[in-house]
């Protein structure tokens, strides 16, 4: 369950941002980008986020996860291809190994949506 640790990292990053804001905004949505060639399962991440943000300034915030497919570039064929995770990673045409990953390793907080209408919230994150 390393999604729990990822969520902790996410909460700490958001806390830093929140505290750096002069007027405490109401965060509404957090947009994440999660590549398919990572060890993160979006459903587990959403579940962990919901549980771990209870009674914090992030309670009720919507987590939106954009899944990014694994795309590799074959230098022999000079073209991109989509490896089949779990089955085959080498180039389907020339069988060259997957060496150049163009996308699918992302694991980042992309952006957030917030409003300036502050609701009464308490943060008990320590």
């Amino acid at each position, binding site marked *: 369950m390393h999604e729990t640790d*990822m969520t902790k990292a996410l909460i700490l990053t958001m806390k830093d941002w929140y505290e750096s804001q002069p007027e405490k905004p109401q965060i509404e949505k957090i947009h994440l980008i999660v590549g398919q060639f990572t060890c993160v399962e979006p459903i587990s991440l959403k579940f962990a986020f919901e549980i771990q943000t209870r009674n914090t300034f992030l309670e009720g915030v919507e987590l939106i996860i954009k899944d990014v497919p694994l795309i590799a570039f074959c230098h022999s064929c000079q073209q991109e291809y989509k490896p089949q995770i779990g089955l085959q990673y080498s180039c389907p045409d020339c069988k060259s190994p997957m060496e150049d990953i163009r996308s699918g390793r992302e694991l980042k907080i992309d*952006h957030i949506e917030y409003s300036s209408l502050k609701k009464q919230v308490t943060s008990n994150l320590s």
Partner: protein
Amino acid sequence: MHQTFNAAIELNLLHANQEGANHNRTHFDEWGITCLNLMSSPGAGKTVLLEKTLAALQDKLSMAVIEGDMTTELDADRLRQYNVPVIPINTGRSCHLDSKMVAGGIHTLKQEYDPETIDLVLVENVGNLVCPAEFEVGEHAKVALLSVTEGEDKPLKYPVMFQEADCLLISKIDLAPYLDIDLERIAQNVRQMNPDVKIIYVSAQTEVGLNLWFDWLLTQVQNNSLVTTT
């Protein structure tokens, strides 16, 4: 009036762990230590490999072990017999070591031993093919183990671990004759996503291949000390 705004964050979720790992590596470099991160599923043979390594190389290298174990000190007790510093890290319910836990181990190493005299720190990660692959701890190279009893499809199913490995030890090869397994197929499956990985077939039981592993290890220490002292 309700108005929403956007703020770009663009920060990796593992940013804090990565910074911690870089910090750990800086310490290792200052002390002239090479650090290797050993990863595999539970029971692939990490601890016995360490036992054989500590026994065989104790005259050539000064070694220490940082031992990740979920709740026990069973593995650490096995390794203490070899008279090297063994620093246990109980990861609690976490399924992998992270850079903060290893920083704790480095702190103990500094308090209780003389890190300047150590050449090699072997980090034994928690047995797990998934999570440890995402959490760098400050190592100079990653070593993955895959035992022949696990099946040749595991690199395809757990690709991140095998894609990141610098060295893959295919362990328990003394059992291969009793199994329906194609050793070459394991290597092919890994090379599909990691063509440059060093693959060594070993058996801790019969000691087949261990010399190749020791050679690889000594080369890592040598190359790393060349890099960090120049």
